[in-house]
């Protein structure tokens, strides 16, 4: 067999190398910045229709202020839609401040278990923004709240939460949620046909006596040691998103929520506010926490937020809330 030239062979190898080297350039080009319309509005059941904030994105390294980003001359409408898709009511909005739009009729209240559409158009822009939310069922704290709670006592403070209920028509229009099977609502609305699907909570503890000496030992030390923490930031302590399945439902359909001591920042009077949030808010917050680094993604791998807004970005979310007031004090002795 004739012996191939080793030199030719090696030269071919290097030629291949150069070809691959060249091929490796610009495999994945960079995008350019694009300005986008941003909407923000959160409907809360039982509360007046929420304001809608409309702005635009700014380039990342430009100084940001809402006033600078605010978009005026927007036509904002929120419509109430029946479970079968029929238009029930139209709520017009008007500009209040730059970028901030409020309902023309401030007496309108947000209904639970109801679908609302948001529409935004502009006189001077081409974008048309559309978003939809289905408000959660009205939740309710149903147990007796003790007058005084001893901080870090063995007996923990527990909340019993009625998750409310939906009509079957509303449920069929909701994305990604399932009802609890085989259980009947005991404490729901009168139109109930099904208990609420698995609820996603955010639990806030809002301190009413925000004195330095009222800080619990952990947070007092945290405040003393960590330079970046502003005292005002400690007033509201938020749990982040919590699936109902963390707690489970009792046989009577109530959710038994054990309140962790970690949530108490200040002794004294506190409000415990439970928010049941819709799927838009759930997706938005989950993806926002991932974008800021709270996931298994490696550092520097930054995805976009999941917005559920057509034609722009932002959040058109809804929630139902109830509040318990508690008095926390150190265990005597």
């Amino acid at each position, binding site marked *: 067999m004739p012996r191939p030239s080793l030199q030719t062979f090696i030269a071919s190898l290097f030629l291949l190398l150069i070809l691959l080297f060249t091929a*490796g350039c610009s495999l994945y080009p960079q995008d350019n910045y694009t300005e986008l319309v941003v909407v923000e509005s959160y409907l809360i059941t039982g509360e007046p229709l929420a304001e809608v904030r409309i702005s635009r994105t700014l380039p990342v390294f430009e100084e940001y202020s809402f006033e600078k980003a605010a978009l005026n001359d927007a036509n904002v409408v929120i419509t109430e839609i029946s479970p079968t898709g029929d238009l029930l009511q139209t709520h017009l909005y008007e500009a209040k401040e730059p970028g901030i739009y409020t309902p023309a009729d401030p007496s309108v209240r947000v209904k639970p278990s109801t679908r609302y559409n948001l529409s935004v158009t502009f006189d001077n822009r081409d974008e048309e923004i559309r978003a939809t939310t289905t408000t959660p069922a009205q939740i309710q704290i149903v147990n007796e709240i003790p007058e005084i709670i001893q901080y870090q006592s063995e007996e923990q403070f527990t909340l019993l939460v009625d998750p409310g209920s939906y009509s079957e028509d509303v449920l069929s229009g909701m994305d990604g949620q399932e009802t609890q099977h085989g259980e009947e609502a005991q404490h729901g609305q009168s139109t109930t046909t099904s208990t609420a699907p*698995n609820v996603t909570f955010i639990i806030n503890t809002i301190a009413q006596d925000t004195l330095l000496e009222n800080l619990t030992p952990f947070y007092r030390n945290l405040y003393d040691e960590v330079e970046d923490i502003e005292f005002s930031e400690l007033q509201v302590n938020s749990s982040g998103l919590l699936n109902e399945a963390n707690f489970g439902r009792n046989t009577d359909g109530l959710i038994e929520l054990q309140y962790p001591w970690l949530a108490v920042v200040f002794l004294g009077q506190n409000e415990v506010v439970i928010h049941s*949030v819709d799927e838009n808010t759930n997706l938005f917050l989950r993806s926002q926490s991932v974008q800021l680094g709270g*996931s*298994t993604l490696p550092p520097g791998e930054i995805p976009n937020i999941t917005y559920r807004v057509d034609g722009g970005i932002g959040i058109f979310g809804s929630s139902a809330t109830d509040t318990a007031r508690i008095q926390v004090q150190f265990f005597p002795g």
Partner: protein
Amino acid sequence: MKRVVSSANLSPATRINAHPNFRMNARMNANLNLIPFAVAILLVFTLLVSTQTSRAQSAVNGYVTDATTGETLIGASVGFPEINRGASSNTFGYYSITDLRAGTYTLQASFIGYQTLRREITLGMNETLRLDLALTPSGVELEEVVVTSEEEKEEQRDIGRAQITTKLIKEVPAVIEPDLFRSVQLLPGVASASDFSSGLYIRGGSPDQTLILLDETTVYNPSHFFGFFSTFNPDAVKDVRLYKGGYPAEYGGRIGSVLSVYNKDGNRNRRQGTVSLGLLASRASVEGPVGEGSYMLAVRRSTLEPLLAALRQSTSNVPDLFYFYDINGKITQDLSDRDRLSVAFYAGNDNVKFPFLSDAEIRLDYGNQTVSSQYRRIFSETLFGFFTLTGSRYFNKPRFDIAGTPFQRDNDIFDFSLKADFEYLPSAKHTLSTGLWAGNMTLKFLDQFDGRVTFTDRIQSQYLSVYAQDRWTPTDRWIVNGGVRLNHFSEGNYTRIAPRFSVEHRPAETIRLQAAYGRFHQFLTLITNEAFSGFDLWLTTDEGVSPAYGDQFVLGTKTIPFRGYALDAEVYYRTMRNLFELNPFIVDPSGLDYAEIFRFGKGYAYGFELFAEKQSGRLTGFVGYTFGVTRRQFPGFNTPVLDRPGEARFYPPKYDRAHDISVVLTYRLSGQWSASAVWNYNTGQAYTQPLGRTQFPNAPWDPEDLDSFTVGRLNNSRLPDYHRLDLAFARRGNFFGIGEAEWQIQLINAYSRRNIWFYNYDFDENPVERTDVTLLPVLPSVSYTVQF
């Protein structure tokens, strides 16, 4: 199909198990269905054995060992140059050459770093000669040229294969401790995620795509210091073989590669040991003869306590406890000249206790334990068998207690298995191999939050795989290796067949042309974090979660341009399908179906690797170059910013890099002094450049503004190129006449390159401020080793 699990649970235990008996029966049936297949393979094999063992030919076989320690040598070349016949010693140091005619021959045995042994032997008609060969290590004289033949690295230069010697591991500069994984990362085709991670990213695969074996036993979390370096103690390691891709049918269970580590058996001739003292970790080992065999014990422990005590003088945030240790042991006994039994174990643990602020404490405790018992039997001159019982445990037990709210997790994996492998040489042209691997894997989870058990479960999964392969050498210019592997995994009841094929042609003595194809399956996925591997969690397939699979195509050439040099090149292309991994957007998986916590994607990788090595002389070392591209795609991920979930685009993972160069050199300055240098360069890692920003100030549950970026394509930008030079100087001497000693002085990142790990964006500043989070600075270190 919902089931309640805890927020901390990421386990397969969410699976529906409404009819556990039915499921168990289904699994058992599935396993039973495989048994005929496995039996059939073994029967065919036995039949071949029975028909062939009566063949009347002469043969020679035996063990190849180190003459000074008696340690078996893996991959040594044994042969008869005058008739162009030979073989390599297998993983137990055993060789066999059959189909020889009666006559007188010159037997030649060689291995890198050893003097070539030549011996004249005479074989009678139908004689089988048992000939154990002891090779003498080469000296360290200057200008020494170790005699090497092209056969010497025969097996080591198979397609997709790479070899790392323990000598190299100990010679090259390393942070804290000489590290096997850090040394493997220097090879072309192998990338690291950062200076802080010893994870192996091989040919575009993530670390869980590499099967890590220690003495044939799966190791699930081979890391110390939460991923900073690997668990393998270089004092205990005898042999490391890396299959970067296209690996043969005898391995399976991962779609990427295999790293198989073999610990030493121990010195069979005399007792010896080493003690090595370092600034941050120290180690000791002892080995020697016992009975009809040997033993080996190697221990290693961090020695951070003095450093922590010094830090406590100036700062309060110092752990109360922070250490790791590992212990390797092995005992080997010859039951007869045909039977050898060994028992090996490994135990490693990392422990941190870190009280912080008032009323808060973190405790982290994780580690691995493995035990294996291997029985090797020479059934005849043409049939060799080995049987292995393995046990592997991985655990992590993080505990947090913050302001009176405790939360903790207990995560355990128990994996017990039986392996049986046979190697049969029916003729000089064929080497048949077959075997099975059956095991039971148990995953246990217990999560508690605030004193309540929020989730507990125990998952058992059985697995079985059988393989058969033939290495056929039709002529001395061609080698064909074909095989098939059948895998079964009970979780989800999946059975998969994986064909493997490779061919090698030698158009000239100094050129080998190679090609390989294989299909590979994977039934496990790893949830980990590049920056921290202390909470690693493995998850399995199940109903609705199919195994990942991929095809690999490899072309390669191995050349010897000059005596003592090697130049190798390989091109690869691989697919990755049905990749299942934890959906990063599931922040709280409680209440979800098992399949709902995953995202399912695909990917591909291709590249070119070049490896040039100088094997002898004062200056030795290698240069490795890799051109690589890897991409992933997951539905709904990396879509355009305006929600269009159907437009998921392929993107490069962070560890993708176009160019990667490693230069590893050792120069023997004198009989006492030597110097080593490692220089590494690679294209900057991929990261996502934010393009725009906005704020959401009105959230009713959050008084703070919610900041957000808008980004374009994911990982569409590159960090500055990475490069680093590490230096090491070693001086050999004598320790008061007791034994040899060596000082090693190292300088990591000698020219203080401030390589960037990632960018941090500070929203508290307006406009947003970007800061660099950098990797290792200049790090000097010194160690002293005594060998007695």
